[in-house]
């Protein structure tokens, strides 16, 4: 009823209503025009003096899609630290925001204006063993979202640094440097001009902003991120016989030391694909494969199995073969297990050693947890079908009675070679394959009668 209007009333009432109406309209216009400004400037100073532009402002930073962000207590992590739990090789879309990215600079300072677009930099730092944060990547994208895909486990910080030029007086145009007068330039000429001005700090106002009163205002924020290892360790296994003209390593330790050097040097990949390189020792290489495969997301991880040398077929023929294996992921803790089972019908049928020929076995493992920078020894075993471990004779293994072909030596036990490597996060690589003791003459003179 407040706005009731009766055309039959006299002119005074009409005038009264009209005034009231236009007052309301005016109030509404004032509200609509002032409202957004008030909203933008609530953080700004309201003093009548020229407002001071702050050197920096705060910033928010987070992951936009948290689907694959693991819970805070993932893999036993302490809660309350505020660190995010990520999986290696999974891309996470980061986003950040700051008052520096607004349309206008009212939230920075009253009457302030932005000069141009913000400068936005995304940086990833990794903590080393001494606790120092070292830069892994730095990308000047000038975008407030960024895909972060960290490919190696460890503790990281994703950092966003923002900056923008802010002025309170409409800003200043860019000023050509050294443009203080063409005469001075041409008089000094060439290198001489540099000599006159090259000492840093001799020119300019030490405290003022260059190029006018535009001032660079910064913002930054970081997030701590624990990136978890989801990759099974690489493993190399070497079998080296001590017969014939082959120069057997003096001890097993010597072979291991040689392998440690090579596995680090080759980042876990086979040191050669030439079968001739494996005349002294036969190798099993089990690793993540090509670089493109090494960046697979945890639930699509694969492994490459390579067998090289003379001991992986009954004829003793040298070869180098590679194949891809799938890796099995644990759906709870996202650890991977690469499991190689050898045998008839498998890509790895078994290892064929000669009777009466001593041999040694060494296994070395390296992990992406420290970018394959170190390697460690892995326990190997030869056991029978009941799990009874076959002991070494001296420094190596020696079998005097053949068990291959199995059909001819049914009374002889089955032997299995087993080994496994596990990293600190529980990613596992295991190999189990038959070990055949070959009657030397039959094996190397196959096709003739014994």
């Amino acid at each position: 009823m407040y706005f009731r209007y009766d055309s039959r009333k006299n002119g005074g009432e009409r005038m009264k209503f009209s005034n009231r109406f236009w007052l309301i309209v005016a109030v509404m216009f004032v509200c609509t025009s002032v409202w957004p400004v008030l909203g933008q400037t609530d953080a700004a100073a309201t003093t009548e003096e020229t407002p001071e532009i702050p050197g920096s402002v705060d910033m928010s930073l987070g992951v936009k899609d948290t689907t694959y962000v693991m819970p805070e207590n993932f893999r036993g992590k302490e809660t309350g630290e505020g660190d995010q739990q990520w999986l290696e090789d999974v891309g996470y879309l980061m986003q950040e925001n700051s008052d520096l990215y607004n349309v206008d600079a009212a939230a920075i300072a009253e009457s302030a204006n932005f000069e141009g677009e913000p400068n936005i930099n995304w940086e990833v730092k990794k903590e080393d063993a001494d606790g120092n944060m070292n830069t892994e990547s730095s990308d000047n994208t000038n975008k407030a979202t960024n895909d972060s895909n960290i490919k190696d486990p460890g503790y990281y910080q994703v950092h966003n640094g923002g900056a923008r030029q802010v002025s309170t007086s409409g800003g200043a145009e860019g000023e050509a440097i050294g443009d203080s007068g063409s005469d001075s330039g041409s008089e000094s000429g060439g290198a001489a001009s540099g000599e006159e001005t090259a000492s840093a700090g001799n020119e300019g106002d030490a405290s003022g902003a260059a190029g006018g009163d535009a001032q660079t205002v910064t913002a930054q924020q970081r997030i701590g991120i624990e990136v978890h290892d989801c990759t099974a360790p690489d493993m190399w296994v070497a079998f080296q016989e001590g017969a014939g003209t082959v120069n057997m390593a003096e001890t097993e330790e010597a072979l291991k030391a040689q392998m440690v050097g090579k596995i680090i040097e080759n980042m876990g990949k086979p040191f050669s694909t030439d079968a001739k390189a494996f005349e002294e020792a036969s190798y099993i290489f089990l690793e993540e494969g090509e670089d493109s495969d090494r960046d697979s997301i945890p639930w699509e991880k694969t492994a490459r199995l390579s067998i090289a040398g003379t001991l992986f077929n009954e004829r003793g023929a040298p070869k180098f073969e590679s194949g891809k294996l799938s890796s099995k992921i644990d759906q709870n803790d996202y650890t991977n297990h690469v499991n190689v089972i050898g045998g008839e019908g498998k890509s790895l049928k078994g290892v064929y050693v000669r009777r009466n020929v001593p041999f040694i076995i060494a296994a070395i493992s390296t992990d992406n947890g420290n970018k394959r920078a170190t390697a460690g020894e892995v326990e190997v075993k030869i056991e029978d079908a009941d799990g009874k471990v076959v002991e070494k004779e001296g420094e190596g293994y020696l079998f005097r009675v053949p068990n291959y072909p199995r059909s001819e030596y049914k009374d002889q036990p089955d032997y299995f070679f087993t080994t496994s490597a596990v990293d600190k996060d529980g990613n596992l690589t295991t190999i189990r394959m038959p070990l055949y003791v070959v009657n030397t003459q039959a094996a190397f003179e196959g096709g003739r009668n014994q």
Partner: protein
Amino acid sequence: MNKRSILLFVTIIVGLSVSLFAQDGAGANKETPWLEGVTIGPHPEELSPVLPLKIYLENGEAIPATLTEDVSVTLVADTAIFDPEPPSEYNGTEIPSPKWTRNAAVSWFFIDWEKNKNVAASSSQQLAVNQMVVTPLNPTGKGAITCHIGRKMRYTSPETGKNKGTFANSSVAQDVRVLDITPPTCGLEVSVQGGRSGTFWVAENPPHKYPLPKLADVYFSGALVKEADPAEIITVQGLELGANMVVAPETAAVYVPADAVLNIKVNGEDNYKLDTAKLKYGICKIASGEPIPISPLNAAEVALAELTLPENPYLYVDATDVAGNRQVLFVPLIVK
């Protein structure tokens, strides 16, 4: 004006207001493309102290507003983030039991606002964590050195009584401009009838050399330089980059027939801004180290037969950048 009209009017006004706000939002997306896809607000939801930061020269003096390209300055960052304990109060809010839990992470950048590009500073020297050597490599009229420092800390949440992790942040910028001390690196391309040509160009080598003088190599190629092998690139090394770059005829020259009409094109290069109004090139002789033009200035076509050539004519390019650095390159012109 009846009640219905008034309500209609009010509705229009409200609708107009709403549409204005909506347009403002859509406009924000157009005006702030860097925020595309961002769904979080501009302020952190949890406590995250922003601490003051000062950066200055290692001798304690303020960073000058003008630096010089290729000249290093060692800077120091000064902030409470390097204190033994984190702040126990921020913006009037108590921070109970604060402890640092990680080392400070420090990042330095140089922003060239003229290009809106930054370069992350890194030093091969062993420095304290709060120090950085910054060497501006490219001139700019509008730049800034920025320093960003963050450190993980832990405190006791007053609400839950449990530990809580957050970051203390410090960042600041010093606006600077970077003086150009490198002369231009201009060259010429010369061709004659029949398609034969010769080109020479200049590259600073080693790049960013300091102290002065700057050095440069001059490269030559083409049939007018070496008719037997036009593809070969001849390098004249170690000339002082400046106003007296004279190539000796025994190292390289441009050979042309006496009746040739030369087509000359200049390749103007500078590491910042060339003063094109001062650019001169053509054929000259040298007197007191200065080029005395024989051909019309900056002529695209020069008929040798119309010139009175001196005993030792040169092709030359005389270039100056906006900072006044001057390059004059003289290349022997041998008329057969």
